[in-house]
């Protein structure tokens, strides 16, 4: 197993790409940089692309309902948002051509694109935007992601046919970012009016593809929208997509997915195992797209709400004791880069501080001694007043890939050297949430995907410690710092770029400096493509793939 020879490929967004990037994928063969493939030739019309998804099958295709990543993956093919993002993080036009906030920041006027129709024939107009926002805010829709994103939106008024005014209850610097996400995408009012059951089966949007048939647990067929006319500003071409259709299959087992790609049974897979990405290096016919999700980085959160991590010295000791770099290299075969930030490297405002996370066993031991954890039991675990230094670590088998679980085992082993007893508990998703809601954890790792740095407010504002009625709370570190709260609140309502960036930087410094989390790497979001798939890229919003520009060569 060659581990060292894999060129650590730079995420595409750091590479200066032409404004219109045809290929944002990295061809592994020969490891060329992510230049557009010269030999690919002209786009070919027709063909069906088979996509094998390892994410859970959505229970509802309408991303307004609930709102999770698997829904976003699919919805990106048939729904479109008001705005998008380009690779530099700039908000760019999509269904909205331009936008203007009022001076007090309490109203935003969006000018909509003209002549766009939903695939059921309904016109896209300001009234449709109002209906969509109303749908998101209606409890009966059972939206959670979109509902949160629309938290400060009071209502939408149709000023005229193509002008929609968002009326806010408070200034929201994250509004555009929120609206760029697939969970707030625009659907046909007529489609929504059919009722949840029908709309879940086949939502109607303005996108390049139309939901055809959904065979549960098997596949969703997406067929070409021949009348498509509304690509985002960074798309590669105009008019309808090249592909006839996409067959979107649900293949939960990673090894099977990879085997199917190798055998040519499918053209694109997501969530490949790191070792298979590395193995694909020797394979001329596979292409790797590395597209870290925006929002938070993958990190281990330390529960500061209760002993022993209510003591900052113990938190720091843990972070200094744990050694993960070698493990990340070995387990991810060079496909994941170590992160030292609370935010994804996809976020422009991410702030890193490597020095804070320098492993230092002696320092860790000293800190623990100082904190009073001086006794050791027969297993070498530290004790204080007869209590073992046990850290409960619930791990969701649905959210952590095997390599990550192995990494946690290494965390367990290295932390033990300092006298921590890390008790990893592998749980299914419901049990995992139950453990969190009951505060039965000292450390935990939970992904969170959102466009923009506002994710910090969701994850680290003390308001997020208060559980939702369902028991959910996002601030798993239970970070309760008025200074952080103030910084994040202010940043959220500051639309001036430099000031906003500075506020987020200060907040991140405080969060990282308090040793509330151990960043690991970006949320891994990879795709392997058969080399005959050309022109596929991921959206710079939440890194979902789009096949609007894609075609099948040969």
């Amino acid at each position, binding site marked *: 197993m060659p581990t060292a020879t894999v060129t650590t490929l730079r995420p595409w967004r750091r590479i200066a790409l032409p404004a219109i990037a045809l290929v944002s994928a990295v061809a592994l063969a020969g490891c060329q940089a992510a230049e557009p493939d010269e030999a690919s030739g002209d786009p070919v019309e027709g063909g069906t692309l088979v996509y094998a998804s390892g994410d859970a099958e959505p229970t509802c295709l309408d991303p307004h309902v609930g709102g999770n990543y698997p829904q976003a993956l699919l919805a990106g093919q048939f729904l479109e948002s008001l705005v998008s993002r380009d690779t530099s993080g700039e908000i760019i036009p999509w269904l909205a051509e331009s936008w203007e906030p009022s001076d007090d920041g309490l109203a935003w006027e969006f000018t909509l694109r003209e002549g766009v129709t939903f695939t059921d024939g309904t016109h896209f107009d300001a009234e449709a935007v109002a209906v969509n926002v109303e749908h998101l805010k209606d409890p009966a829709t059972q939206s959670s992601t979109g509902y949160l994103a629309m938290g400060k939106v009071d209502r939408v008024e149709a000023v005229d046919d193509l002008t929609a005014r968002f009326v806010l209850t408070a200034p929201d610097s994250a509004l555009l970012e929120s609206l760029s996400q697939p969970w707030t995408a625009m659907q046909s009012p007529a489609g929504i009016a059919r009722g949840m059951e029908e709309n879940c089966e086949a939502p109607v949007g303005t996108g390049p593809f139309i939901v055809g048939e959904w065979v549960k647990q098997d596949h969703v067929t997406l067929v070409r929208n021949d009348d498509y006319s509304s690509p985002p500003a960074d798309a590669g071409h105009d008019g309808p997509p090249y592909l006839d259709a996409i067959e979107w299959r649900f293949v939960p087992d990673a090894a099977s997915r990879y085997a199917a790609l190798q055998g040519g049974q499918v053209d694109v897979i997501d969530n490949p195992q790191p070792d298979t990405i590395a193995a694909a290096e020797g394979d001329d016919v596979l292409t790797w797209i590395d597209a870290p999700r925006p929002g938070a980085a993958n990190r281990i959160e330390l529960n500061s709400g209760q002993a022993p991590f209510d003591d900052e010295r113990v938190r720091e000791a843990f972070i200094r004791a744990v050694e993960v770099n070698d493990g990340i290299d070995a387990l991810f075969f060079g496909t994941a880069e170590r992160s030292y930030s609370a935010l994804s490297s996809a976020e422009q405002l991410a702030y890193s501080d490597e020095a804070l996370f320098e492993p230092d066993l002696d320092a860790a031991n000293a800190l623990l001694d100082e904190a009073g954890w001086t006794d050791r039991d027969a297993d070498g675990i530290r004790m204080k007043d007869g209590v073992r230094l046990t850290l409960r670590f619930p791990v969701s088998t649905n959210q952590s890939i095997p390599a990550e679980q192995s990494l946690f*085992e290494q965390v367990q082993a290295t932390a033990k050297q300092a006298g921590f007893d890390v008790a990893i508990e592998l749980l299914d998703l419901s049990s995992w949430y139950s453990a969190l809601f009951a505060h039965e954890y000292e450390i935990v790792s939970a992904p969170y995907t959102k466009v923009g740095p506002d994710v910090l407010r969701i994850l680290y504002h003390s308001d997020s410690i208060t559980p939702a009625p369902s028991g959910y709370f996002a601030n798993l570190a239970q970070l309760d710092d008025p200074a952080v709260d103030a910084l994040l609140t202010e940043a959220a309502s500051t639309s001036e770029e430099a000031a906003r960036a500075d506020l987020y930087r200060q907040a991140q410094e405080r969060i990282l400096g308090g040793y509330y989390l151990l960043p690991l790497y970006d949320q891994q979001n990879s795709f392997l493509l058969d080399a005959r798939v050309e022109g596929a890229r991921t959206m710079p919003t939440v890194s979902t793939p789009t096949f609007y520009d894609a075609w099948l060569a040969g």
Partner: protein
Amino acid sequence: MSELELRQTTVEASAEHLGPRRRRMPRAGTVLAVAFVAFLAVATVAPSLVWTQDPNRIAAADAFESPSLAHWFGTDESGRDVYSRVIAGTASSLLIGVSATLIGLALGLVLGVLASFGGRVLDFGVGRVIEVLFAFPGLLLALLVIVVAGPGPVTATIAVGLSTAPGYARIIRGQLVGIRSSHYVEAARVLGHSPGRILARHLLPNALVPLFVLATLGVGQAIVWAAALSYLGLGAQPPAAEWGAMLAAGRTYLPTAPWLTVFPGLMIVGTTIATTMLGRALTRRGREGR
């Protein structure tokens, strides 16, 4: 008279033993099985005698090394020595296999005894209970138990034990019913022995012998089922080296590092084969008399 008959018996008996089917020589396979089980016993009682290094020692830099003199079975994704982990996993794997089987057997025995002795009503009732347990797919029963009680080796063991219980119960009931209507139980009744005494002296001992053989098969099966639970992420918890968990964890790397699953897999298969062969050898001896 008795001398004459005895002589004749000897002739009959030896003719029988020299016949085509039964031989008294221990088979080569039996010898191998005994040797393997002895090795397992050592690995269970004193694993540190046979392992080559600390099974939980992580060396990320040494990950995915193929089998060599330094690492007989290679190293795993965290650079741990697979051979040492296989050895270290013997105790917990066997514990899971044996205790799950014991739970299944014990429950099966209770149900079986109730069914065959509790009279018609109880027999019908227990029969239905067994049906109901059977009607639950084994893995679902296990899933329910695990989801209710939380994952881990103990619940996995209980879950597997529970799901094997109806099978054992049915066999035990069949055995007991057969033995109950046998002539020797009738002979004991004719002598005026009480049902309790008959149960203790005749029924249970005679029903348990074939069960023992069944159990030898069951141990391997229980390990395999526990492994399936590990695959679904519900079995042994890290860093415990348990064969099933190792098999499940290593499966991901099967194309690139097959040794991660081949060796724990061989241990499971080997244990099943060895215990089964031992069980069969013991039954053969039982059948041939001592």
